[in-house]
């Protein structure tokens, strides 16, 4: 609440400053006065950063205004970029393949890119010499399993599905047993898209987590929340609710090949304390990259 109060204070201070991009703001080498800072606030908001992250960035800028005022735009970008990068650098708390099979849940709202991400990840791991089983636990959406099957073929992974409309937990149980019996290195579990406000569907996810743990103690070892880079402030609600339901320990940011910058991911990382593991940059099998905090931070603030 304290932060909220400070934010509210900060926002109500807002003066009659035209909203302008960061670059315009400092081009004229104006000193960093209060008005300028507030205008930066607007610019960062426009990048979907979310209020708390913006607030912190501004505090850092204000504290170092001396050096920024003399260094112009590059200095400002460097300071902000640094600040965002360090907020995003989180140690990986998981070590893939330290358990066998390594079980990964992929979760998120509708259409964020879960199935595609699984296809890409399966291919990556197959290329690394791992044997992978992908499980179609989305038994709800039409042709979801067919879509995943195409990806499994592309990746050279084993594919497991149940009947359409089957209980996802039952499909999951079968898949985990099969993976164990056949000695697979990893199981990637595709879940149905769900809005985080659907309490019963979130409960279903929590149940799947319990079922996995019952079959393979410690599973799922990873729960990746897939966020669409175009998402606005709602991304933070998504992060919170999915974390509550399923112990999210990593994020995937998809569709970064578009023009959206995915700034809300900064707020999600801060809130959940989990790293962004991968980014999606296209619809092809190779379009999944490890997350690079520095590059991402630079893309949010501009500059090189």
């Amino acid at each position: 609440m304290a932060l909220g109060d400070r934010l509210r204070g900060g926002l109500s201070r807002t003066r009659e400053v035209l909203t302008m991009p960061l670059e315009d703001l400092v081009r004229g080498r104006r000193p960093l006065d209060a008005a300028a800072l507030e205008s930066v606030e607007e610019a960062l908001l426009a990048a979907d950063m979310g209020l708390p992250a913006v607030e912190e960035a501004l505090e850092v800028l204000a504290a170092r205004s001396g050096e920024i005022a003399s260094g112009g735009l590059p200095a400002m970008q460097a300071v902000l970029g640094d600040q965002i990068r360090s907020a995003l650098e989180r140690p990986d708390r998981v070590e893939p393949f330290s358990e066998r099979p390594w079980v990964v849940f992929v979760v998120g709202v509708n259409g964020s890119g879960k199935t595609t991400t699984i296809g890409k990840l399966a291919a990556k791991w197959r290329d690394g010499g791992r044997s992978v089983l992908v499980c179609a636990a989305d038994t709800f959406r039409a042709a979801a399993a067919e879509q995943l099957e195409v990806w499994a073929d592309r990746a050279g992974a084993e594919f497991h599905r149940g009947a359409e409309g089957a209980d996802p937990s039952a499909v999951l149980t079968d898949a985990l047993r099969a993976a164990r019996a056949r000695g697979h290195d990893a199981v990637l579990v595709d879940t149905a898209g769900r809005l985080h406000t659907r309490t019963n569907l979130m409960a279903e996810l929590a149940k799947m987590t319990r079922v996995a743990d019952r079959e393979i103690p410690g599973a799922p070892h990873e729960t990746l929340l897939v966020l669409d880079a175009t998402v606005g402030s709602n991304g933070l609600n998504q992060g919170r609710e999915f974390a509550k339901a399923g112990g999210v320990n990593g994020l995937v940011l998809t569709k970064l090949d578009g023009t959206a910058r995915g700034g809300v991911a900064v707020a999600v990382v801060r809130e959940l304390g989990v790293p962004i593991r991968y980014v999606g940059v296209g619809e092809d099998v190779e379009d999944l990259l490890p997350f690079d905090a520095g590059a991402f931070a630079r893309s949010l603030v501009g500059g090189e």
Partner: protein
Amino acid sequence: MFETLSERLQAVFRSLRGQGLLSEAQVEAAFREVRLALLEADVHFRVVKQLLERVRARASGQEILKSLNPDQAVLRVVRDEMVELLGGDDVPGIQTASRPPSVVLLAGLQGSGKTTTAAKLGRWLADRGSHPLLVSTDVQRPAAREQLRTIGTRAGLKVHHPDESDAPAILRSALAEAGAVGHDVVLVDTAGRLHIDDALMEELAGLRDAAEPSEVLYVADALTGQDAVRSAEEFHRRIGITGIVLTKLDGDSRGGAALSAAAVTGRPVKFAGLGETIEALEPFEPARMVSRILGLGDVLGLIARAEETVEKEQAEELVRKIRRSEFSLEDYRDQMRQLRKLGPLDQVLSMMPGMGSLKGVDVERGEEELRRSIAIIDSMTVKERLEPSVINGSRRKRIARGSGNTVQDVNRLLRQFAQTRKLMKGLGAGPKAMKRLAARMPQLR
């Protein structure tokens, strides 16, 4: 949580009242509050600026200052402008061609909901006497055509699925089929694409030229942030959209993207997607959307949600009990469970007008309190729940221990229960009692 916009505006004008005079500066301060509310709702900052310019032009400071309720005056102008941007009194439905079949082309970014919307729209039109033909030209995404065929067929719609492997050929085949069979509408689903993907946007323009659609619907995701402006603008520039469909409005996003997309394209939002099922499509209601974006309380949304969540018989049973003054701790617990099922508290609260005026609502604490209260009641025996008067000192201690709380917590719960019971009798027992009660849970005050 932020206070509601109405409250912020009230505060702006109240601070001046004391001095007897309202000033232009105060009006400006009110506009700034509006601006922040819009930004929080993800409306693009450029759109916010334009909107406020229009509001300024329309409502001179004097006009607002002269009004009895300046905060309401500001809100009214802002609202009117927003409703107009979103499509105003645009007649819902689909424009038809002078010669059938009318073609409706659906386009948009990846995963926005085109395929689902195509099927929903097919159902919607069929329910109104049309004979639509559905076709997917998405040869890009794995199993995309299969997806439309499954949803469409399941809904009793005709889905054209020719043995062709490129989009223009599929489209031609569908148009021929529609002509031959006598379908009056052809709904064309397209592959998701990025607005900056030149080749795919070119392909889309080609499809549009071949289809000569009477409607080109841009399908946009209500969860979108600032990017909504760029993508909608670009789709409009490349293929000339005629309207917007906003999907995933069943979530808790404020949906500022609607305003962004409508503002930069000048096209109305025609339909709202409210779920994954075939019937979850409604003609868009600008006024309702404006309330949602501004955080003025989406009462309709809340009621829909309550109806979905609260089992009907349970509600009726409760009403009976209230009437007979048998409301017990068990019912009280059910109540709290229902309230939690409605969704995270802050969402529920944000949808209730007037809730914002309950100063000092601490959502985190409210949630915590609900959990605690439920745990306390869980630790009681059935007899205690039905007859709270038997709960003496030693029982209180046991209950506190059992639920991991203090005796003070138990006492407070019992006090709140007694208050609620009294309140409920006052509320009467109309069919809406349940919902009204939810709005008055002591935990939220």
